[in-house]
């Protein structure tokens, strides 16, 4: 391996689009979300540095470990969640039609990696052994089975239409056929947005950490640095999934100059964040069985219909 390519890989991992960029973007997304949520509710909202201040404060706090918790698992899962969320960004095209790394099938790897944080939440809750955390863990897993399949199908539909399972090749394909992207816009994107609410555990699907029912859910026993890592991994997950949705459903303008593509990227991610904040403001939290029923009755069939449309269109066009 020549030194230049080694340097480039390290730059990708640590700076852009890796840890540093994701951390900054994650905090920015959290701020945008909280601010929008506050403005929708007729409140002022936090100042721009609030997410960072929260993070710093949590890191400075003492870590408490519950009696009877499996300490090794308890301490490891937040790091795994953070890592998994970070790694998945490398395959998502951000500044042009080509991502940092690519191979045929990277879409599946990204989806797999994005499931890991949720599994880590489950494990963290399970190994805390507290009642509320266990309830939260069970709910996390139940919810996972409800939204994950529609999310996968919705995101695979554009891939089927493009005839490739590589995100970068998909971006290239949609630059050549920009009108094809509209086929996924009206069914696939809403389905993915709804599933995203479940993945990020936001109202109306914030059932696993419903404060008024099970206190902090899986995070009940977490404090200090470990909680900070968990929160950061949720923020980073939000950025990564928004980027994924932007790359898959809003693939336009990727062959423009880099600065323009990045500006467009901010707009696209901003749109996804806006939609999430809007949903959070106008809905009440559902019960777990209502959520599962809703996902299987409406969201999964909608996702299947989208897949069908993509398959038919890929044959016709």
């Amino acid at each position, binding site marked *: 391996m020549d030194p230049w390519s080694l340097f480039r890989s390290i730059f990708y991992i640590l700076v852009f689009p890796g840890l540093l960029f994701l951390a900054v973007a994650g905090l920015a997304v959290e701020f945008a979300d909280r601010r929008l949520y506050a403005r*929708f*509710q*007729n*409140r002022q909202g936090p100042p721009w540095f609030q997410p960072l201040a929260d993070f710093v404060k949590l890191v400075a706090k003492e870590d408490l470990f519950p009696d009877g918790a499996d300490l090794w698992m308890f301490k490891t899962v937040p790091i795994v969640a953070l890592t998994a969320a970070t790694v998945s960004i490398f395959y998502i095209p951000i500044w042009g039609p080509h991502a940092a790394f690519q191979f045929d099938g990277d879409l599946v790897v990204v989806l797999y990696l994005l499931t890991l944080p949720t599994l880590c939440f489950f494990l963290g809750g399970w190994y805390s052994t507290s*009642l*509320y955390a266990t*309830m939260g863990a069970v709910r996390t897993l139940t919810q996972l089975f409800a939204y994950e399949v529609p999310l996968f199908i919705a995101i695979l539909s554009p891939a089927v239409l493009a005839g490739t399972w590589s995100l970068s090749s998909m971006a290239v394909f949609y630059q050549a056929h920009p009108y094809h992207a509209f086929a996924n816009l009206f069914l696939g994107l809403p389905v993915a947005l709804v599933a995203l609410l479940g993945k990020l555990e936001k*109202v*109306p699907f*914030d*059932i696993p950490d*419903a*404060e*008024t*029912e*099970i*206190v902090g859910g899986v995070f009940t026993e977490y404090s200090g640095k470990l909680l900070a890592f968990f929160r950061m991994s949720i923020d980073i997950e939000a950025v990564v999934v928004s980027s994924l949705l932007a790359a898959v459903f809003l693939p336009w303008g990727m062959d423009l100059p880099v600065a323009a593509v990045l500006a467009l990227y901010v707009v696209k991610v901003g749109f996804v964040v806006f939609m999430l904040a809007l949903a959070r*403001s*106008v*809905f*009440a*939290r*559902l*019960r*777990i*069985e*209502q959520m599962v029923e809703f996902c299987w009755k409406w969201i999964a069939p909608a996702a299947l219909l989208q897949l069908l449309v993509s398959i038919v269109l890929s044959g016709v066009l």
Partner: protein
Amino acid sequence: MGTVTIPIGPQHPALKEPAAFSITLVGERILKSDVRLGYNHRGIEKACEQRTYTQDLYLIERICGICSHAHTTTFITASEEVAGLKVPPRGLYIRTLISELERIHSHLLWLGVAGHEIGFDTLLMYSWRDREVVMDILAMLTGNRVNYGINTFGGVRRDFTAEQLAEVRKSMDVLEERTKYYIEVATSEPTLAKRLGGVGSLSHDDALRLGAVGPTARASNIQRDVRRDDTHLVYNELDFKVITDDHCDVFGRTVVRVLELMESYKLIRQIIDKMPDGPVSVKAPRRVPAGEAVARYEAPRGEDIHYVKGNGTDKPERVKVRAPTMANLAAVSKMLEDNNLADVPIVVAAIDPCFSCTDRGIQVSDLGRGRDETLAWGALRAHGIEWWRREAGVDFASLNRKLSQSLAAR
């Protein structure tokens, strides 16, 4: 499938005051529930016996932070009946005005809390923002946002000017507009309907059997409103509808409360229109003759009952408070049956509980020695003195002696 018992309280984000619900679950379904109170006992009834009627008024006001006026009005109505005092009509109208304003702020507060319990914080922010309108009005009229201190023995402490009343009328228009919006939201928003409909059912018969009061009873289609059944203040001169609903669930309780808001706006306009001129209070005697009285009052949460017994001195012999939550608590276990864990917060919140208002007595079980007895006041006092002497070496008898000696030496 195994059962798991999950504690909700004494400290829990869903509860605004300490109370312990022990919920036994099968999966997410509630098998049975058990409620335990007694974390907020403040000994108010006993303290009332050691203070004069006027002092008691300010103590009673602090029974509840939300329906403070309800408790003082009930207490003062009973006391005035014992004393044989007749409050001038304008005083009664002012009491009624504050009482309806209090109902508005309590119901708006409840709407926000209900929204929060089901994760709908936007509703909380909106309704509490609008609640500020009525809070400002109360502060303008009485000088305080929470404990108004408007009642006094024999009438009320402040008279209102025509400008103040015009201001109240103006803000009623604002609130009416907003409330219409809430009625629309509460009855048409899909996730809200999903979370409230069919949850915490309490049938008409069960509500009667368990003695539910206030909006909880009215949502089970019971025509029960003390304002109409046992007329107090000036409600017999006013025209209003008793709102009932036949949904018998949390949704029904929401509908009853938001529609009652509309009735309150109507009532306040009538009160301002009909308010007579004249004095607002009469001079009250310091001593109240022997005798007893019970007063009932429709507080925002339901029927509030106070019992006052006078003994010819300036202090009551006995005061008994029955807060509306006490009457509704029995129904909570019934409501929780066969619901989901996720419904516990909203079902409990739907009776608009006020646990610290409810705590009237406490029984301490001495588990270490296996004794379970109730101590009378004198025995408790003797036990306390003896405990301090034995455990901490403080001898109150010798302290008292020293004090009286040093006082005598001066």
